């Protein structure tokens, strides 16, 4: 009891290349199409991130993705975004299905942080469980970032989780909010199951009380 393991990649600071997807309501079906949800592992989803937008043919599990024709129109295929670790997005990113395969695919592709106006609730939660930092910023700041990314090849941002800041190349510092508990877990790469199990006695006591009062919930 009480053992708290470090199971996910911690997030402290990042100086990364920024890629931008300029559309609202990007859903998790688009981030990772359903045929890849048939797989039973947690890793290896990166090559199929945005599969339907990214390739010209139809992808299925087990294909050699390196042999597939890329869609030259899709932003992430642009050479200037190769190796990007930060994804700039619009509002309601990650809406739709609860599939955690979406953050798994983003993380496996190489992204460590997202910057956007807003995220869907379940997706937002799922990111934190996988060492992926979703940063919300006001609309005007996001608009300015889009303009700068499009205007500047090799555009990079510095993210510092401890001070909750994003620093632009021109020195402008943008502050973001994050819940203290999530920040603590992410900074230390903590396994939240281990953290929760420190309260095992409380959970057990709660459960016993509930069982006594509403036994039908436990039959």
């Amino acid at each position, binding site marked *: 009891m009480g053992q708290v393991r470090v199971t996910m990649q911690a997030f402290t600071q990042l100086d990364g290349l920024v890629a931008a997807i300029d559309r609202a309501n990007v*859903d998790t079906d688009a981030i990772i199409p359903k045929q890849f949800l048939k797989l*039973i592992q947690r890793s290896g989803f990166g090559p199929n991130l945005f599969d339907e937008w990214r390739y010209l043919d139809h992808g299925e599990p087990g294909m050699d993705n390196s042999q597939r024709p890329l869609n030259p129109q899709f932003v992430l295929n642009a050479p200037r975004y190769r190796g990007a670790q930060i994804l700039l997005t619009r509002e309601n990113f990650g809406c739709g*299905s609860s599939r*955690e395969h979406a953050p798994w695919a983003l993380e496996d592709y190489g992204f460590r942080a997202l910057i956007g106006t807003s995220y*869907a609730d*379940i997706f937002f939660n799922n990111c934190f469980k996988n060492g992926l930092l979703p940063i919300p910023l006001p609309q005007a700041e996001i608009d300015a970032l889009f303009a700068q990314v499009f205007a500047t090849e090799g555009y990079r941002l510095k993210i510092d989780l401890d001070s909750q800041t994003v620093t632009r190349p021109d020195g402008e510092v943008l502050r973001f909010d994050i819940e203290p508990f999530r920040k603590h877990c992410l900074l230390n790469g903590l396994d939240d199951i281990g953290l929760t199990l420190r*309260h095992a006695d*409380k959970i057990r006591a709660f459960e016993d009380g509930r069982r006594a009062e509403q036994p039908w919930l436990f039959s």
Partner: protein
Amino acid sequence: MPQTLYAKLWNSHVVHQEEDGTALVYIDRHLVHEVTSPQAFEGLKLAGRKPWRIGSVVATADHNTPTDHWDQGITDPVSRLQVETLDANIAAFGAKVYFPFRDARQGIVHVIGPEQGATLPGMTVVCGDSHTSTHGAFACLAQGIGTSEVEHVLATQCLLQKKSKTMLIRVDGALQTGVSAKDVVLAIIGRIGTAGGTGYAIEFAGSTISGLSMEGRMTLCNMAIEAGARAGMVAVDATTVEYVRGRPFAPIGADWDKAVACWRTLVSDPGARFDQVIEIDAGKLKPQVTWGTSPEMVTTVDGEVPDPTLESNPVKREGMERALAYMDLAPGTSIKAIRLDRVFIGSCTNSRIEDLRAAAQVVAGRKVAPTIRQALVVPGSGLVKAEAEREGLDRTFIDAGFEWREPGCSMCLAMNDDRLEPGERCASTSNRNFEGRQGAGGRTHLVSPQMAAAAAITGYFSDVRDWLR
């Protein structure tokens, strides 16, 4: 102080709270299916952990399973492995009950929970599936979770969460004949948008909602997530209690009476304060049809495809243009002029017995249009299918030219063989019209069961109100 239903559910399940408000919320019911559970069970095994209370788990295979030729099993080897992995995990860890592939009670996870009485009022319900909001119809705090959270709930019986804001959507007035819960919820999403409910728990109330059956309330809560809200809910009333009575896992005897007394308190107190209130006049609602690639891109059956050049917000305008290009629709096209290739009646939104009855009422004595390539009816569970067959609904559909299938998620997300071909257009009773949702390149229009049935008959969208007058 008067409390909202959400606050009552929340307060009665908080085990522990961190300083920043992050709480450990106790989970009463955990629904499990094959797609989002393998990695969670694997994680549990790797960490050498045991499930906290495996008796809370109700499991079934639904997303990947075929809906025809059940004698041949699951022919896709990747899908089969996933379903067999669930079989093996349940064999190893246990469950309160498991309805495997081909069991008479198998079905869509959100249909079987209520059907079995495994979903009871006042419960916290989770499932690795966003449409878990469905169970909120029973005054449950029911939410979709990711796979890491599935593992967390398996290991600790708790979910880590912060309290949501509350939104009251009050719908009052009588619905016109031919206008259903599906139309109500599509109209709501059209009004508040797909992110309108983000960060909120929605309570649906008002005379229209009280007048809905449990099936209708489930349709409504099912799509709360399409409005961005993780949870939607309806207060307990006599309809709720009568639906639960006599279900296999419902309490009996003295426990039943005690439970009912407890459930009756699951309402928002008069004067309870909500962070946001939305009011809808149900009498004005018409049948809804989505025209784009997000559930908020919706209009009425007598409307037309909107013109993006009239939209002032540039991000929205571009979204509309992209959606129209994907859907191959021109601005100004009348909704009734849109020709369909396929029709799908099914999914956890609209595959319960009442949905099938409503659709059959429209289909009876008519024939599917020759231009329709396929019209599918996929009941939500084995028991729904059996009941429909007892009532002869299967004959009504088959005689009209529909295919009558085995239960499952089917063409709602097309993980099995039921799918649209690229470019095909479908009238669907499911909940998502995202690009590629029903098959790569497929075009989805979300509608009610009666609207889907009418579309199958004429091959175009038609106003089902004209058929039922």
